[in-house]
C-alpha cells in the first residue's frame, strides 16, 4: 500500500453570498459569547436586535433564491456530502428559517430589555446570550441536512430555552424549567437513539442519503424501531398530545416575552423536523402505506384539538389559557400531516406560519398586560379595554384569528385543513375542525368579556397604555396575521409547493 499522495488543492473562490446558509447560524453563535464579554446593556441589546434582523435578511434572500433557482446545497468546511455536513436549503426549510428569524426580529426589540425577568439588571447581557443561542439552535435545526447535526442544534436551543424559562418571576418558573429539562432531554435522547439505529443500518447521517439507503431495508425491525424513537422523541419536543405535559407550565411561568418567542418558534421547528423525518428520511409511502401512521396521528391530533381547547376554557390565567390553546393548534398542524394529501399537508404547513404570527402576537399582548398590571390572571384584566385600548384591540384581532374568522390567517389554515379532510373523505373530521373552532370562540370570548364588559374594580392599580417599544412589535405580528389573511396566496402558494415537494407529486 502506497503512502497517500496529497491531493492537489482546488482553490474555489467563493463570495460571501455563497456562505449565506451557514452565516445565519454562525452569526448568532458568535454574538452570544460577545454578549457575555461586552456586558453593556444597551450595546448588547442593540447587537441582539441587529443579529436577528441580519438573520431575517439572510433567510429572505435564501427563500427568494430557492424559489427562483431551486435547492441550495452548502458543504460545511468544504467537505462534500454525504461525508461532510451538508446544509441543504429547500423550499420547506427556507420557509421555516424566514418564520423563525422574522419572529426573532420582531420579539427581540420588544420592551427595553430586562423588564419582567427574575434577573439582576446588571446581568441582562446573559439573558441576551441565552436568547441568541436559542435562535442559533433553532436556525441550525432548520438549516442543516445532517441528522446528527439536527440533534446538536436541538440540544443547543433546548438548553438555552430551559435557562430562559427559569428566568420567569416566581419560584414556579424554576420547577417548570426543571420539568421541561427532564422531558426535553428524554425527547432529545430518544431522537439520538433513533438516529443511531438508522446510522447502524445505513452508515450515513445525511438525510437525503439516508432516504436512498433506507429503501432496500425500509421494513426491517431496526428501521421501524428507529422510526418509533424519532417520532416519540420529536412528539415530546413539539408537545404533541399526550406528550404535551411540559408545555403549559413552561409557557405560564416563563417571562411573557420568552413565552411569545418560544410559542412562535420552538414547537414550530420541532414540527419542521417531524416533517423532515416523515417525508424526507422515510418517505410518504412508507409512513402512510406501510406503517399507516395516520391511524395513530389522527386520533392524537383530534384529542389535542379538543383537550387543548377544553382545558383552555377552564383556565383562570391568561398565559396558561394561551398555552393550552397552543396544544390545540399543534393538533391542527399534525392533523394536516395525518391527512397525507397536498391540501391537508399545506394546511398544516401554512398553519405553522399563521400560528407563529397570531400566538406570538397574543403572547406579546399578555407581556404588555403583565408589565403594566403585574398579573396574568384573567380577572385582573377587567376593564383594560378602556385603559389600554391599542393593546386590547390587538388581542381582539389575534383572538379572532385563533377562532378562524375570515380575513385572518386562522381562516386560511382551517380552509385548507377542511378541504384536505373532504378530499380524503373524512367528513366527520371536517366537522370536528369546525366544532373545535367553536370551542376557541368560547375561550376567546371569556377573555374579551372581562376586558370590555367588566368595570375596572375600585382601588385597582392605575394603568395606562404601553409605550411604542412594546406596541409596535405586538402590532407587527397581529398586523401580519391580518395581512397574510387577506393576501393568503403569498403563504399558501409556498405551503402548497412545499406539500407537493414533500409528498413527491410534482416539483
Amino acid at each position, binding site marked *: *500500500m*502506497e*503512502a*497517500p499522495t496529497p491531493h492537489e488543492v482546488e482553490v474555489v473562490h467563493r463570495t460571501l453570498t455563497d456562505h449565506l446558509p451557514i452565516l445565519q447560524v454562525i452569526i448568532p453563535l458568535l454574538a452570544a459569547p460577545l454578549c457575555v464579554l461586552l456586558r453593556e446593556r444597551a450595546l448588547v441589546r442593540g447587537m441582539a436586535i441587529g443579529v436577528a434582523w441580519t438573520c431575517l435578511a439572510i433567510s429572505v434572500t435564501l427563500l427568494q433564491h430557492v424559489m427562483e433557482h431551486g435547492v441550495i446545497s452548502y458543504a460545511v468546511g468544504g467537505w462534500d456530502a454525504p461525508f461532510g455536513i451538508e446544509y441543504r436549503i429547500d423550499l420547506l426549510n427556507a420557509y421555516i428559517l424566514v418564520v423563525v428569524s422574522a419572529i426573532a426580529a420582531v420579539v427581540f426589540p420588544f420592551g427595553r430589555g430586562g423588564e419582567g425577568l427574575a434577573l439582576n439588571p446588571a446581568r441582562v447581557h446573559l439573558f441576551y446570550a441565552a436568547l441568541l443561542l436559542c435562535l442559533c439552535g433553532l436556525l441550525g435545526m432548520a438549516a442543516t441536512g445532517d441528522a*446528527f447535526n439536527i*440533534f*446538536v442544534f436541538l*440540544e443547543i436551543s433546548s*438548553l438555552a430555552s*430551559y*435557562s430562559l424559562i*427559569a428566568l420567569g418571576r416566581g*419560584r*414556579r418558573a*424554576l*420547577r417548570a*424549567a*426543571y420539568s421541561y*429539562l*427532564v422531558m426535553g*432531554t*428524554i425527547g*432529545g*435522547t430518544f431522537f*439520538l*437513539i433513533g438516529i*443511531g439505529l438508522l*446510522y*447502524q443500518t445505513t452508515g450515513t447521517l445525511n438525510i437525503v442519503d439516508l432516504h436512498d439507503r433506507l429503501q432496500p431495508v425500509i421494513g426491517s425491525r431496526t428501521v421501524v424501531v428507529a422510526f418509533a424513537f424519532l417520532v416519540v422523541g420529536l412528539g415530546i419536543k413539539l408537545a404533541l398530545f399526550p406528550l404535551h405535559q411540559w408545555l403549559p407550565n413552561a409557557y405560564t411561568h416563563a417571562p411573557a416575552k420568552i413565552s411569545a418567542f418560544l410559542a412562535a418558534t420552538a414547537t414550530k421547528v420541532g414540527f419542521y423536523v417531524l416533517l423532515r423525518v416523515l417525508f424526507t428520511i422515510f418517505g410518504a409511502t412508507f409512513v402512510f402505506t406501510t406503517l399507516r401512521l395516520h391511524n395513530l396521528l389522527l386520533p392524537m391530533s383530534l384529542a389535542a384539538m379538543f383537550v387543548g381547547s377544553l382545558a383552555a376554557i377552564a383556565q*383562570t390565567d391568561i398565559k396558561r389559557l394561551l398555552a393550552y390553546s397552543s396544544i390545540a393548534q399543534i393538533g391542527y398542524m399534525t392533523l394536516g400531516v395525518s391527512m397525507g394529501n397536498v391540501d391537508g399537508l399545506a394546511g398544516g404547513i401554512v398553519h405553522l406560519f399563521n400560528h407563529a404570527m397570531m400566538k406570538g402576537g397574543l403572547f406579546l399582548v399578555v407581556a404588555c398586560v403583565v408589565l403594566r398590571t403585574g398579573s396574568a390572571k384573567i380577572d385582573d384584566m377587567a376593564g383594560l379595554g378602556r385603559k389600554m385600548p391599542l393593546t386590547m384591540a390587538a388581542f381582539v384581532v389575534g383572538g379572532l384569528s385563533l377562532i378562524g374568522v375570515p380575513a385572518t390567517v386562522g381562516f386560511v389554515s382551517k380552509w385548507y385543513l377542511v378541504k384536505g379532510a373532504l378530499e380524503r373523505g373524512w367528513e366527520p373530521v371536517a366537522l370536528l375542525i369546525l366544532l373545535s373552532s367553536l370551542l376557541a370562540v368560547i375561550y376567546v370570548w371569556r377573555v374579551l368579556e372581562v376586558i370590555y364588559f367588566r368595570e375596572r374594580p375600585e382601588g385597582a392599580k392605575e394603568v395606562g397604555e404601553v409605550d411604542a417599544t412594546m406596541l409596535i412589535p405586538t402590532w407587527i405580528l397581529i398586523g401580519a396575521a391580518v395581512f397574510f389573511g387577506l393576501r393568503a396566496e403569498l403563504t399558501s402558494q409556498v405551503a402548497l409547493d412545499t406539500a407537493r415537494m414533500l409528498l413527491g407529486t410534482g416539483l
Partner: protein
Amino acid sequence: MSGLPIYWMAIVLMMVGLYTVIARDNLVKKIMGLNLFQVAVIMLYVSMGKVEEGTAPILDHGHLPEGFQHFSNPLPHVLMLTAIVVGVATTALGLALAVRIKEEYGTVEEDEIVLMDQALERGEG
C-alpha cells in the same frame, strides 16, 4: 437470550436510568437517572463503531498496523464526544436548577414542592 450482550447492557442501563427519572422524587437523583439514560445511549453508539478484528484507525507509517486487516469505525466515537458535551451541559443546568429550587423552596423533594405549590394556588384562589 439473543442479541449481543452489549445491547442488553445498554438497554438495562437505559431502563435503570429512565426508571430513576420517573420513580424518584428527589430532584438530584432524577438528574443522575437522566445521566445514566444518556450514558447508556453513548455506550450503544460507541459499540457500533467496533469492527470485528479491527484496530484503531491510525496509519502506521502509511500502512495498516501489523496483524490487522481492518480499521474500526471512528465516526460514532466522534459523534459521542459531542453527545457527552451535551450530557455534561444538561447535567450542569439540571443541577443548577436543583440548587435554585433548594434556595427558593428549601427542599429538593418533588412531593413536598408540589404540596407547597398547591397550598400557594389555593391561597391565590
